[in-house]
């Protein structure tokens, strides 16, 4: 699927692989080129290459700049609180006492809740579109799932406030507290605005990411694996379980981690439904607060260097966690698809 023959009006018909590969044999084509080029092209080439190199370096520079700014500006908070910053419960801008634990807790709980809901759904959708559904449905179905990724975060939030939250508080929460109240996870007044609402809306938002990566990974499982399993008498599901899912494990894991990365950093929709209270509560019906939403709510109003710097330190922590999560996910996906670029984030 990487380099399909693409009929295009403005391009000559695709060359047979052997014909195009010639140039790659020890770079023979490239070595020959300088002989053919006149002296006139030499300077232009170097200028051009340098300019393009600058653009490439800009990509590296952006990452470096992000790290530099975050580290530099979170300094005051780091000096004031040290590691205790991430262990403290208090968030008291008036007395300039800052502890980020409630935000870290809220981010982790809402993200894991989202994964819990989204992973089975996303893998199911990917399996259905690649292995089960009629070919005619395949295109429209993946289009619809991708459409889910195109909806802006703020629109999800808007919908969550006016549709999801009322449904939760009128139907879902009373039901859950009746049936599962004994676990202690579903107790308290059913206001709708809650950690649960944040987890659900996040789940809806990360399904397309996980399912599109999973689909990509399932598609690179060699067809022979499937045929072999079927030839041995496996039913379709057994074939999927033994030949497809098992082969694609690492890549699916990568997709899940990528979804986690998105959930951790997601801001607007969560901010609109999580309740924004810096507390740690066991019940999922209680309001919470995430690292990203405290930035969204308080950053532009932060007065005082320590306050601002404490917020930037939260941003730095969020950045580092998502970088690590994403790097891990990319490596996992790369090992499966062998470096073919993925378009899941686009």
């Amino acid at each position, binding site marked *: 699927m990487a380099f399909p023959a693409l009929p295009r009006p403005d391009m000559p018909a695709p060359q047979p692989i052997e014909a195009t590969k010639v140039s790659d044999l020890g770079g023979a084509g490239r070595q020959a080129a300088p002989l053919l080029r006149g002296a006139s092209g030499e300077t232009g080439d170097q200028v051009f290459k340098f300019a393009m190199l600058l653009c490439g370096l800009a990509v590296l520079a952006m990452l470096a700049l992000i790290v530099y700014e975050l580290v530099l500006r979170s300094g005051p908070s780091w000096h004031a609180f040290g590691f205790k910053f991430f262990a403290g419960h208090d968030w008291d801008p008036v007395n300039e006492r800052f502890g980020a634990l409630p935000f870290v807790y809220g981010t982790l709980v809402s993200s894991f809740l989202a994964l819990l809901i989204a992973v089975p759904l996303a893998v199911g959708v990917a399996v259905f579109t690649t292995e089960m559904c009629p070919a005619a449905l395949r295109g429209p179905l993946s289009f619809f799932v991708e459409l889910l990724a195109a*909806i802006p975060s703020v629109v999800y939030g808007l919908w969550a406030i006016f549709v999801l939250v009322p449904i939760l508080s009128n139907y879902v929460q009373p039901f859950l507290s009746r049936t599962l109240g004994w676990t202690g996870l579903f107790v308290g007044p059913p206001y709708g605005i809650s950690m649960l609402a944040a987890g659900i809306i996040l789940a809806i938002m990360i399904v397309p990411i996980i399912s599109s990566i999973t689909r990509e990974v399932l598609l690179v499982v060699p067809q022979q694996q499937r045929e072999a399993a079927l030839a041995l008498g496996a039913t379709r599901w057994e074939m999927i379980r033994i030949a497809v899912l098992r082969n694609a494990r690492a890549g699916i894991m990568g997709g899940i981690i990528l979804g986690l990365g998105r959930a951790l950093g997601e801001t607007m929709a969560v901010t609109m439904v999580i309740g924004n209270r810096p507390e740690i509560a066991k019940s999922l019906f209680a309001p919470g607060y995430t690292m990203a939403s405290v930035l*969204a709510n308080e950053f*532009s109003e932060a007065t005082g260097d320590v306050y601002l710097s404490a917020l930037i330190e939260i941003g730095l922590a969020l950045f580092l966690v998502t970088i690590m999560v994403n790097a891990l996910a990319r490596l996992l996906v790369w090992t499966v698809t062998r470096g073919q670029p993925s378009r899941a984030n686009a």
Partner: protein
Amino acid sequence: MPERMSERGNPSALHTVPPIALRRRITDHVMTGVAVLTVVLVLVPLFAIFAYLVYRGVGSINWAFLTQTPKPVGEAGGGMANAIVGSAFILALASVLGVPVGVGAGIYLAEFGRNRFGDVIRFTADVLNGVPSIVIGIVAYSIVVLSQKHFSALAGGVALAIMMIPTITRTTEEMLLLVPQALREAAYGLGIPRWRTTISITLRTATSGVITGIMLAFARVAGETAPLLFTAFGNQFWNLRPNQPTAALPLQIFNYAISPYDEWHRQAWAGALVLIVLIVTAVAAVRFAVRRGTFGAA
């Protein structure tokens, strides 16, 4: 194994191929059912969102909404015209900053970056893609807003440009790699210098694909709110100066959605519909291009 037992006891063993045990067949059907169920569960919110958006949005869009600036709280009417234009302005700034760098980096990767250093850039671009948008907002704040001393459209443009570049880089690279090597060689063979070949032959051939990638990046940042919160900041009035706070459609939707006023809720829905129509149009255009086969790997 129980399956084998039941097969042996099966009277219909006349088939040349032994029939698949009932339990395995049931499992197969159940799992197919589960897969269908997941698809339904995923599509329900999608349709619910679109249906509700159209239902609330269409009723709220009117001429005033598209042509007027916001009215103070309590007064009916008013619109988001300044936010629509403001969004376009910020996105234009972002494109001017982001597109050349993104395309340039893509050219570097495709034409000169088939090595370890190229891999580093490639990986960095992929990782940058996953940086939370709110963190990029913070960086744009500390680079642009702190040096200008106030919120500005430019800061918003910088934030969105940083988000666009990795996507554009990667898609441009992909598109350039799809151009047959023989085409480049033909150009070299005619004595055309390499830079000229890249610009006039390779990039030219891949134009529609590269533009598709740019559109994709554009659609992705068009709905972004988080990085604009403390860069462009929002504005109740018209503004087209890059160094002043500027209204943006997503920001306006956010502020109106969390407000306690029904009239503002109504306008938030109208704004959301306008925003999504713009974005879906872009995505559909991308999809159309994929169908035509210009976009390469699925």
